[in-house]
């Protein structure tokens, strides 16, 4: 099969991404990967504000594309297809990416490929490490937390996941509660190094339940309560701050490690020829969590890999690559491609979040 050159566009949360990926399914390389963040725009609000994000994407997507092309030294005429995140995510941002991609595809008469953002994350280990199907995927970020068995570019089995918040969101919230800067992951991890993880005993939600589902919303509340107990006149000592961080991080790590152990058990029953677990998402950057998961993988007899952080957090390269896998199978979309706020990867398993009339979120 000859090399394909794919432009990928990502705009589903607070990062505007565009990238050029070239190669074949299972053997591709990143020629450029531009990510324009918006952290400073949302800083005052303590979280991503959808309308602010949408406004930024609308004026950045084409600029990111231009930069990705020039850095890769690729002209649009050399691009075989335009891949774009079509959901799930904040719909205003997704729409900007989808419309820009449609404009480019229509103008050039090139194929358009809509990509599920989660598939982008889940297929990244194929791009970075050339993993063979089926492999186990833990997707753990600010917006998502799920175990997926990846059997093909469009075949995912969700083994479990969070029933409420994602761990990354909990890290952000804990950082806010403890006067640490956003994003919370790195700042909580750094403070946790100076803390005693045994001083505060936080709950391990759903650990006593069977299966691989998780919950993180109660853990945030537990940290809030513990903080309020040791706080006097709205002041907290640096040691309290560090101990709270350490206790919280240990609880998250313990839950993720145990649930990963169970998920791997399900996966190993498939007798994969080259058993591997890959972890993607911003939370995968946490060294304590990574160390625990590496141990769990070893015990289960599976290899462990985590793509480099730049390809773990939201980016256009993963969308380009997932688009490449779809396009290589002859799958494309037309100009009526819809932007979707909700779009579960595993269409068969029962929805976990947002199972209301609008359907499953992820």
């Amino acid at each position, binding site marked *: 099969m000859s090399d394909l050159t794919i432009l990928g566009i990502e705009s589903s949360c607070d990062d505007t991404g565009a990238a050029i990926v070239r190669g074949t399914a299972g053997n591709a390389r990143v020629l450029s990967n531009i990510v324009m963040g918006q952290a400073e725009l949302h800083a*005052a*609000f*303590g*979280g991503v*504000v959808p*309308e*602010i994000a*949408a*406004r930024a994407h*609308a*004026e950045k*997507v*084409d600029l990111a*594309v*231009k930069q990705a092309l020039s850095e890769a030294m690729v002209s*649009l005429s050399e691009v075989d297809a335009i891949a774009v995140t079509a959901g799930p995510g904040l*719909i*205003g941002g997704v*729409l*900007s*990416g*989808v*419309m*820009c*991609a*449609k*404009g*480019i595809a*229509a*103008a*050039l*008469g090139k194929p358009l490929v809509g990509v599920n953002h989660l598939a982008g994350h889940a297929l990244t280990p194929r791009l970075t490490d050339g993993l063979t199907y089926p492999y186990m995927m833990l997707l753990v970020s600010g917006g998502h937390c799920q175990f997926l068995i990846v059997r093909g570019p469009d075949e995912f089995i969700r083994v479990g996941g969070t029933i409420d918040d994602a761990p990354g969101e909990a890290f952000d919230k804990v950082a*806010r*509660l*403890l*006067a640490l800067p956003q994003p919370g992951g790195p700042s909580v991890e750094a403070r946790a190094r100076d803390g005693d993880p045994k001083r505060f005993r936080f709950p391990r939600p759903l650990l006593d339940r069977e299966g691989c589902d998780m919950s993180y919303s109660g853990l945030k509340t537990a940290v809030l309560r513990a*903080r309020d107990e040791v*706080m006097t006149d*709205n*002041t*907290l*000592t*640096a040691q309290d*701050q560090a101990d709270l961080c350490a206790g919280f991080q240990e609880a998250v790590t313990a839950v993720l490690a145990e649930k990963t152990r169970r998920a791997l058990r399900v996966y190993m029953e498939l007798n994969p020829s080259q058993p591997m677990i890959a972890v993607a998402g911003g939370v995968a950057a946490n060294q304590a969590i990574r160390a625990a998961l590496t141990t769990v993988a070893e015990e289960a007899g599976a290899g462990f890999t985590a793509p480099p952080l730049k390809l773990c957090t939201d980016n256009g390269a993963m969308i380009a690559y997932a688009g490449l896998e779809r396009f290589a199978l002859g799958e494309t979309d037309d*100009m*009526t*491609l*819809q*932007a979707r706020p909700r779009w579960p990867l595993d269409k068969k398993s029962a929805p976990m979040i947002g199972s209301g009339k609008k359907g499953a979120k992820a």
Partner: protein
Amino acid sequence: MVWTLAFDTSAAHCAAALLRGDQLVAARAEDMGRGQAERLMPLIQEVLAEGGCPMSDLDVIGVGVGPGNFTGIRISVSAARGMALALGIPAVGVSTLDATALDAERPVRVHVPAPRDQVYEQGFGCEPAVPLMRAGGTDGDTPVILPPAPAELAERIARIALTRAPFETEAPAPLYLRAADAAPAKDAPPVILP
């Protein structure tokens, strides 16, 4: 002969118009409350086909930047920016206010409906010279005009884009006239003692 394509989704419609030189050769508009993101490109392709202009022959793109529905404006602006990048031609952002005032006798004020009984307003040859949003209702003696039907709006956006294209240096950007709804984080974090 210069081909100019313009489109607008700033309100409950999807509209596109094509000029050859300064002659209108095709214009289409459809009323729709939602689904503009799915309909816009096919509608553009239909207008281009009707006018006999392949997309690659376009010279200028005009796009409605509002004010109006935030999501709708972004749909058109994002598409225009993508097309302009791929075709290597200018895209010109034109406000509904400018398009409405085109050829109108001065002084005149343009009102575009805004949410919760408010209006987006701009005066031409009178105040307010800079567009703003305010409570609705008419006041003052200067005549007030409202935007034309969507197909004509698209045509006027095309005409203005055609004249501005040689001087345009900035990519089109939405004209919001209203800050994003967002409240700063509550609950001040604790003070950390060493």
